[in-house]
């Protein structure tokens, strides 16, 4: 029986095998569906033009990463002869074929959006991006040639290939121009030559213009001047190309004596991993393509002929151009003061404020500043004995890193877990790790074989009535830059139970044995999966016994087979399950008898949805959890993650409101259909609601309310008042 047929004719619930691959979606294809939702935003005329550019750029950078990691991993599996089928019953080869077919369609759609929708609209709005150097006028030509001679030529390294000069290593994701050349006065034999488009020069070359702004891309300027690079040659043809390589690191941590050095070594190799994608101009000369393809050993289906500029990530630069403010979104409010930290006296002492009660923050609507201030104040507070923190991705010039270094210099015990294996942030993190070590911090690199993904900070402070622990736990990274763009939730607490657990987390990360008992925290990879399964099964039991059972879970990705099977079982038992999954979702919604009580929605909005919030009805005694982990095998089985409960009423109310509002979103939510596609929300009879806008407005209202309450009105003293005295 074909898979399709299986899907359409579900078996009776009581005989169902909930692990049947027919009930699961392939994670790679589900990921592409997510990028398609981003592309939908680029297409959506309701969005301001520049926001659409940003979304298109995001689809391109997403796709780059997808190739470097996911497609690369499929290739590795095929190369290694790995035959095991995935959750959806597909072999690696089947997946790769399906992925490549779908990506080809996707790329075509990307460029259709660019060529037919965005580029013409940009021109209408006074921003012209010339497609080719052939479109330049005389005046432009003089300008670009001079620009080439003065600025570009000195940094170029043209390379010719012949028997004595082997094919150069083409860097991962670099843009290059390849050419076939013949020696002047020679026998006409063609040689291959190539030049990398330098990353150090802005890709957007602005042309002189009296009205509006006009740009030509850097590679077009180089193409026009190719002959200057190969003086003794005639250029037969030339074309741009870009290579995507396998960029997954393979580090044997058991063997690596110094993890930091080993990662540095591997990072160098990343540039030269196996080529797995070749993008070229659509009209590239076939002889040239054949040469490049042969050298890079890529197959036909790995070649993407592009109808437009290669590498659309440059659109983020376009987004950053001055002067187009009216084409950008201003309706979203973020960075509002957290009401609990608003009052003047509390600004001075963040610890005093936490002592008054737990504080739950919803970023980016509420500012991330208190988290930075928390570390900064801890660094200078003479009563603070120690600061411990996990760092996964940090911003450039991170104020948190600076504060940690300052604390160590002041003699505090500072332990920082820097995750060197945070994908694509490895180099960055090595630099921070070295800097922190130099400042006297105790830098730890976590546990062998596991990435430390949890976000936790512990400050130990000596106070009048004894030692007190202050803890921050979050769903997002300690990165003050991304905290302005990602939606996350964070909790400050000085409750003893959380403090004890936080101490135990850092002990474990330092290599000590796990504690005898955890009070509040549940950790992956040892206990989290089982705990989540237990919580889901508890709802199943409640529903079977006629008690209310409901699950609302918000996360970035859902692809853990056991967890999904447990959700199916819960759904079959009558538990209402509402999932808010931004990205990959291998669960299929609405299968009769399996998942008909499950809804899945994905919110793709102005901010990147990033928080993980789980709600379990528990027969009328609800439990709320926050976590750094998605429900994916890597999070639950190969990473150090934390899930923690929110038990104080104000925090629980806030979390309920977040979930409730997102479930009511009619604007940016995409609903997963039984056929695996996503559609917008049917707005009929519903109040129009954009959850991200709504959260911003609410954050502002709350901040304003506190601000007004704090404002004291001083009445000027009048002459009459003075006379009274």
């Amino acid at each position, binding site marked *: 029986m074909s898979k399709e047929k299986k899907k359409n004719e579900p078996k009776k619930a009581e005989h169902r095998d909930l692990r049947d691959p027919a009930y699961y979606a392939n994670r790679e294809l589900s990921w592409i569906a997510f990028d398609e939702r981003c592309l939908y935003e680029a297409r959506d005329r309701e969005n301001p033009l520049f926001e659409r550019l940003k979304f298109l750029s995001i689809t391109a950078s997403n796709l780059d990463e997808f190739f470097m990691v996911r497609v690369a991993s499929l290739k590795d599996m095929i190369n290694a002869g790995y035959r095991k089928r995935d959750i959806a019953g597909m072999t690696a080869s089947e997946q790769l074929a399906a992925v490549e077919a779908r990506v080809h369609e996707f790329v075509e759609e990307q460029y259709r959006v660019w060529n037919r929708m965005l580029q013409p609209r940009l021109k209408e709005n006074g921003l012209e991006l010339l497609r080719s150097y052939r479109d330049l006028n005389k005046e432009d030509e003089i300008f670009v040639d001079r620009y080439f001679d003065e600025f570009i030529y000195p940094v170029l390294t043209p390379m010719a290939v012949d028997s004595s000069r082997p094919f150069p290593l083409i860097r991962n994701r670099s843009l290059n121009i390849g050419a076939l050349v013949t020696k002047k006065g020679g026998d006409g034999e063609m040689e291959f030559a190539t030049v990398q488009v330098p990353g150090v020069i802005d890709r957007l070359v602005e042309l002189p213009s009296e009205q509006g702004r006009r740009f030509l891309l850097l590679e077009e300027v180089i193409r026009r001047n190719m002959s200057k690079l190969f003086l003794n040659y005639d250029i037969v043809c030339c074309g741009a190309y870009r290579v995507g390589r396998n960029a997954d690191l393979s580090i044997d941590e058991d063997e690596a004596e110094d993890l930091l050095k080993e990662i540095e070594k591997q990072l160098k190799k990343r540039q030269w991993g196996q080529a797995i994608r070749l993008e070229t101009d659509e009209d590239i000369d076939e002889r040239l393509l054949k040469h490049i393809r042969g050298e890079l050993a890529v197959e036909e289906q790995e070649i993407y002929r592009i109808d437009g500029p290669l590498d659309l990530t440059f659109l983020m630069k376009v987004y950053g151009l001055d002067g187009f403010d009216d084409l950008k979104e201003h309706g979203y409010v973020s960075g509002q003061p957290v009401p609990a930290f608003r009052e003047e006296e509390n600004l001075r002492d963040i610890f005093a404020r936490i002592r008054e009660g737990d504080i739950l923050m919803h970023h980016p609507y509420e500012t991330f500043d208190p988290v930075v201030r928390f570390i900064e104040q801890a660094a200078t507070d003479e009563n603070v004995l120690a600061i411990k923190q996990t760092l996964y991705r940090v911003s450039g010039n991170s104020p948190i890193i600076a504060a940690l270094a300052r604390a160590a210099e002041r003699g505090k015990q500072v332990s920082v877990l820097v995750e060197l294996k945070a994908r694509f942030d490895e180099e960055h993190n090595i630099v921070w790790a070295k800097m922190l070590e130099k400042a006297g911090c105790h830098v730890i690199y976590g546990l062998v074989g596991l990435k430390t993904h949890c976000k936790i900070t512990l400050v130990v402070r000596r106070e009048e009535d004894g*030692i007190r622990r202050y803890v921050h736990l979050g769903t997002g990274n300690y990165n003050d830059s991304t905290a302005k763009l990602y939606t996350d939730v964070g909790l400050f607490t000085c409750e003893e139970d959380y403090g004890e657990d936080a101490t135990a987390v850092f002990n474990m990360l*330092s290599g000590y044995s796990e504690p*005898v008992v*955890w009070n509040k925290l549940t950790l992956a990879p040892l*206990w989290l999966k089982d705990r989540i399964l237990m919580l889901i099964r508890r709802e199943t039991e409640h529903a079977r016994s006629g008690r209310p059972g409901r699950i609302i879970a918000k996360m970035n990705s859902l692809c853990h087979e056991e967890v999904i099977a447990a959700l199916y079982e819960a759904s079959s038992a009558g538990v209402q399950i509402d999932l808010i999954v931004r990205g990959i979702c291998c669960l299929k919604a609405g299968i009769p008898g399996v998942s008909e009580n499950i809804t899945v929605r994905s919110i793709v909005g102005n901010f990147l949805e990033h928080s993980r919030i789980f709600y379990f009805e528990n027969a009328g005694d609800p439990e709320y959890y926050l976590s750094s982990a998605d429900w994916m095998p890597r999070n639950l089985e190969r990473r150090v993650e934390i899930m923690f409960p929110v038990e104080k009423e104000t925090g629980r109310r806030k979390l309920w409101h977040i979930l409730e509002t997102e479930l009511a979103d009619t604007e940016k939510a995409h609903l997963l259909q039984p056929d695996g596609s996503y559609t917008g929300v049917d707005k009929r009879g519903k109040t129009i609601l954009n959850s991200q806008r709504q959260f911003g407005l609410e954050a502002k209202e709350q901040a304003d309310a506190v601000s007004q309450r704090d404002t004291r009105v001083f009445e000027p003293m009048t002459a009459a008042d003075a006379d009274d005295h």
Partner: protein
Amino acid sequence: MAAEVCAAIDVGSYEISMKIYELGARKGVRELDHVRSRIDLGSESYATGRLGTGHVNEICGILNEFCSVMKTWGVTKVRACATSAVRESRNRAVVLEQIEKRTGIRVEILSNSEQRFLDYKAIALKGTEFEKTIEEPTAIVDIGGGSVQISLFDRDKLITTQNLRMGVLRLRERVNQMGIGTRKYAALVCELIHAQLSVYARMYLHDRVIPNIIIVDDYISPILQKKKTLIESGLIGEEHADLPQGVVSAERFIGFLASVPTESQVSNARNLGIPLENLPLVYISGLIIKCIAEVMHTETIWAPGVTLCDGIVYEYAQKRKVLATQHDFEQDIIASAYHISGRYKGNRKRSELIGSLSLGIFDCMKKIHGLGKRERLLIQIAAILHDCGKYISMMNLGESSYSIIMSTEIIGLSHRERQIVAEAVRYIYMAFPESAEEESRSEMDDEMRMTVLKLTAILRVASGLDRSHMRKLTDTDFHLKDEELLITTSTTEDITLEKELFGTRAAFFEEVFGVRPIIRRKRGMK
């Protein structure tokens, strides 16, 4: 009193652990941190009798890391104790010196009885249920890597303690050497346990029913602490929800253990947060408890989850008066001394008399002898055990008593303290050697010699006051006047014998203290 932060370190057979505590008048003892580093010292030490450079380096590395953890908490006081692995290694002196030189931490070696007494103190001080539990006959089963200590309580007093060489690591080693399969594993371990347990039961239990056992161990206790998870996993029933943390019915426990080797228990192990590599030791620890519970007909098992570190800090807290307790630990030591004396047919009444006379002299002479509260306890113990040797030989009473005391565990006394007691009892009957050179067998240093000398002098006088074994001097006062210790008695009995034979003992006393003891009857008596 401002809160004080202190650290307790336990250099154990398979793990070095440290706990950090805050001691304050308001909050009492509060645990702040607990770090554990696995290091298998036991295997090397038990097999070779030494600790090699590799292990010493490792210990130093771990302790240096502990130092930085201590800085995190601003620790001002640290006590580090080592147990059997270091104790049983011949090169322990070198090892300890190396450790101190390289880490700045002075590690002291605890005798088995000191170690168990600290564990016991931790139970009594940490567990709120303790006083209630020991109202009924109770056994504390303290399971270590090398041995198991079983201490029996009757009518809320500790009466006996025995050390059985069937610790978890030792049993595992023995069973592993046999290379048997999983099927027979449990049966074989139980057989090894029963071999020792049956002797113990015959000697000390005599078919007594011990309804409660209190567990101190590193494997089962952490599991029993997780009551919520145990109930959620269905390993114990809902009825346990109202019981104190760590309490489980013996029947449930035995039932739970019977199902351990099955596959589903591996997932239960994960639920309970047990590292899989620990499973065999959890299992052996469980079997030890099971066998003991069966022999004692136990109903309730209680694992208060205390560790040696807790004992170390509770003792310190008690000294600092941060922690008040209703339980009198000295009475436990005295009760177990009486129990030993009883076993060797000691004369309890005479022991009591000599004890009270000795204490009378001790208290009266306080300014002169300069000894402390602890030595006061030792002289009591010595008085209780003064005649235990007669069970073996009336002729060699001193030597026999010494041997018995030295080979009997007296819970709560360090090895050194036990030796002081044994030497003091020995020299009641034998001539005290004039110098260390003269005393070839003794390992006494000068300080110990002086203590023993003083205690012996007092004991000899006290014993001399009941020379006839007739307990004539029951009503006696002691008074120190100038250079005389006046022993005034109101007895109406004939004390000629006591007076006549008092001379040599009095001379020895005078030689030691410069004070002459003189027996006098109260005025108006002859």
